[in-house]
């Protein structure tokens, strides 16, 4: 009985009435997501070409070895190109899907050629055809060369690993072992801490400022909310996705977050903790460390963040030179750090500073034991 079933299944698979569906979409950077696939001679196929890119694309299947010829003929259409969907009148074009606009799809039903071979598919919109292509392998035994040796796919797709290395601290050994790998530089210089990236990052507004400090400490200060949002140790950022530019992506934190602000706002000028009116002004680099400048209810505040002397926390120095009233600095027990201050008096989780004390004071934030958030 079992044997019989398998035979039936085998026949079903070979039954030419079965239509197989192939799906091809578009990746960022003029690429088909599927760069090659295998079909049997004479197999019935249903090709769904969807376009999740934000440019328009078409898809032509050509006779073996004629991709460049077809691409060049499409170019020669010149001003007739748009109305012809960039599909040249050429015997080398076997099947074509006209221009598919972003977020649309079109389907093509066809029967694979009887003749075995490698049939290219390509987008012939001017400029696309030289890099945006793939290969349909037509043969009975499903053979295809190793991806890395396949001459019929775009060179950048021969290796599926991402070559964009993103470890900011390239000179640091990973896993305790020196890494002899050749690393593509991120910049025309080696970033030396402290340094800054303005980035999109989770846990802050889109106007975030990420700062790498010496000693593998990092923090995110948010120009959108005028406060220190979080801090971490063990690395800085992986910007590799962010820098590609396309799609909603963020910088990734490398390391462990040890502090995350939980207050409504760290400062208040009245006992009722009312959030003052915020205005971000900018930053000045002092020995490359940014000193942030913002106003709270119109009062200038300057904030400079240095690594704590033992490297296990942050030392924040505030200047509020023109303040005339008492200042409260608010903290939250669950924010991951212990606080010390040389000036002012603690009232629970709040540090109360006289206007004179608030002209210049420091807050030391130490990582709590096991303090990983």
């Amino acid at each position: 009985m079992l044997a019989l079933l398998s035979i039936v299944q085998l026949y079903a698979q070979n039954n030419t009435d079965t239509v197989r569906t192939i799906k091809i979409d578009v990746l960022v950077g003029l690429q088909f997501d599927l760069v090659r696939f295998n079909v049997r001679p004479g197999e019935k196929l249903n090709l769904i070409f969807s376009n999740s890119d934000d440019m328009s694309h078409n898809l032509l299947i050509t006779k073996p070895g004629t991709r460049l010829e077809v691409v060049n003929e499409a170019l020669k259409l010149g001003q007739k190109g748009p109305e012809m969907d960039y599909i040249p009148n050429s015997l080398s074009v076997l099947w074509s899907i006209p221009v598919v606009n972003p977020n649309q799809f079109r389907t093509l039903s066809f029967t694979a050629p009887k003749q075995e071979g490698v049939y290219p598919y390509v987008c012939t919109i001017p400029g696309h055809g030289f890099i945006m292509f793939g290969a349909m392998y037509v043969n009975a035994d499903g053979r295809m060369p190793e991806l890395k040796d396949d001459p019929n796919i775009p060179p950048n797709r021969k290796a599926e690993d991402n070559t964009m290395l993103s470890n900011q601290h390239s000179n640091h050994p990973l896993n305790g072992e020196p890494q002899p790998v050749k690393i593509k530089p991120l910049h025309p210089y080696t970033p030396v801490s402290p340094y800054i990236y303005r980035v999109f990052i989770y846990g802050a507004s889109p106007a975030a400022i990420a700062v790498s400090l010496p000693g593998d400490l990092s923090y995110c200060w948010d120009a959108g909310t005028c406060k220190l949002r979080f801090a971490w140790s063990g690395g800085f950022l992986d910007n590799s996705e962010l820098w590609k530019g396309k799609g909603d992506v963020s910088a990734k934190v490398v390391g462990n977050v040890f502090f995350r602000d939980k207050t409504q706002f760290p400062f208040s000028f009245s006992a009722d903790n009312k959030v003052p009116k915020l205005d971000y002004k900018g930053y000045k680099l002092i020995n490359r460390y940014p000193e942030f400048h913002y106003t709270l209810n119109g009062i200038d505040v300057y904030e400079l963040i240095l690594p704590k002397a033992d490297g296990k926390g942050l030392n924040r120095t505030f200047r509020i030179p023109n303040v005339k009233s008492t200042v409260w600095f608010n903290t939250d027990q669950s924010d991951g750090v212990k606080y010390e201050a040389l000036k002012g008096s603690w009232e629970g989780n709040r540090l109360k500073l006289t206007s004179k004390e608030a002209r210049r004071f420091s807050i030391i934030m130490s990582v709590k034991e096991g303090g990983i958030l």
Partner: protein
Amino acid sequence: MKYKVISIYMTGMLLFTCLESIIAQITNDSYRVETIKMPDGLTSETGAVEFLPDGRLVASFTRGEVMIYNTLTREWKLFAEGLHDPLGILVISNSELLIMQRPELTRVKDTDGDGTADLYEKVTDDFGLSGNYHEFNYGPVKDKDGNLFIALNSSSGGGNIRSEVRGQINPLGRESGSKGQMFSNLPYRGWMMKLGKDGKLQPFASGFRSPNGIGFDLEGNLFATDNQGDWVGTSPLHHVQEGKFYGHPGSLVWQKGWNRGNPFLLPIPVLDSMRTRGAVLFPHGIIANSPTQPVCDNTAGKFGPFSGQLIIGEMNKERIVRVMLERVGGELQGACIPFLEGNGLRKGNNRLVFAPDGSLWIGQNSHGWLGDQGIQRIIFTGKTPADIYSMNLTEKGFDLTFTEPLEVSAATNSENFKFRHYYYKYQSKYGSDQFDIQNVPVTDIKISNDRKKVSLTLATLKSGYVYELNLGDIKTSTGNSLNNKLICYTLNKLKSSSIN
């Protein structure tokens, strides 16, 4: 007939670019393209190029670097770092720049004279920011009175808004239901903004989709290009005037006193009646797919005969486009023509600036789209290009003025002037087909005594159409072929007593 590519980086992408250039270009011996050697380790997706008063070039790049290039010693030097997608620079002095980045317009200044910036001061951040990847910001450019203008890209329907945004969300700025159209959930996405000398950022004009390029002409008219897509049938050049709406609906929710609900739900004829059309349309796939910064040739002849005209970059082809404008019925309209094609030029021509010596510097970018990287320079060789100087609408057709006298027999043969017209639809759908494509016969040709001006009479002239002209084998009186044989005139308005 000679040109030299000084150096070519054979990156994977570029290899193909070069193959393509070989196919479709006419060698241009009036302009030469040079490639600038970029610093090692720089990912040179160029967001801005400008010149400092001392003659050095300043450029900004995707990964946040701002670098200065000494054109004499050919050395690069880092000026600032860490910026977020800096896509525009306005030079204040040798040590002070205004830089448009994602979160704000920033004053970047070297205050201690060590050659690198140490002050990053907010000039304005009085606009919404959602974290959507497409919220690029452009400019600033400065008018004669010292006001600054910046343009804010609409947000992409291919993305979303983050849970934490800057600014008050208005859900009406996005169509509900179908995916894909660009939107404006946060203040002034899709607007051109004006920053007055009082420091206040004010909304100036709305309806922009992706205005990657703003600039002034010599008369002080403000222009912005936009990119083909939803509500943009083909990419336009807009003459931007205060209070006007340029077509993409989302931004309307931020218009003062807006009380008409979700603008995406308004009938298209209503939106159409509100909008101002592009002064020049770049037919998609024909002239440009993604036009960028318009710069006005202010070189008084150092860059050739096109002084006062606009030169505009194109991302998707190895091409720079030229625009010639005229006032018809009180509004600017005109024609676009390829300016330089191939000849070593790369794709991704994102930012343009004229150097003090009159050469044109071009910063290239791709950023996930079609394009390239690096900086190139176009130099006028001194040989007048054989080209159309201007195309002007007349009551019966068009006057074409050439840079040089023409050989008469070909220039008066109507076979050598093949017109067709078509129009693009204003619609929510991405882009537009060409509609009502028809050949338009030339019924009469006259040439001026100096043989530089050809007056063409057309069988019909209709407003709302692009008139595409393909020239045949017309030569100058000295036997040179024309550099460009394709020109497209956007006929928004007819001359007062034109035939219909």
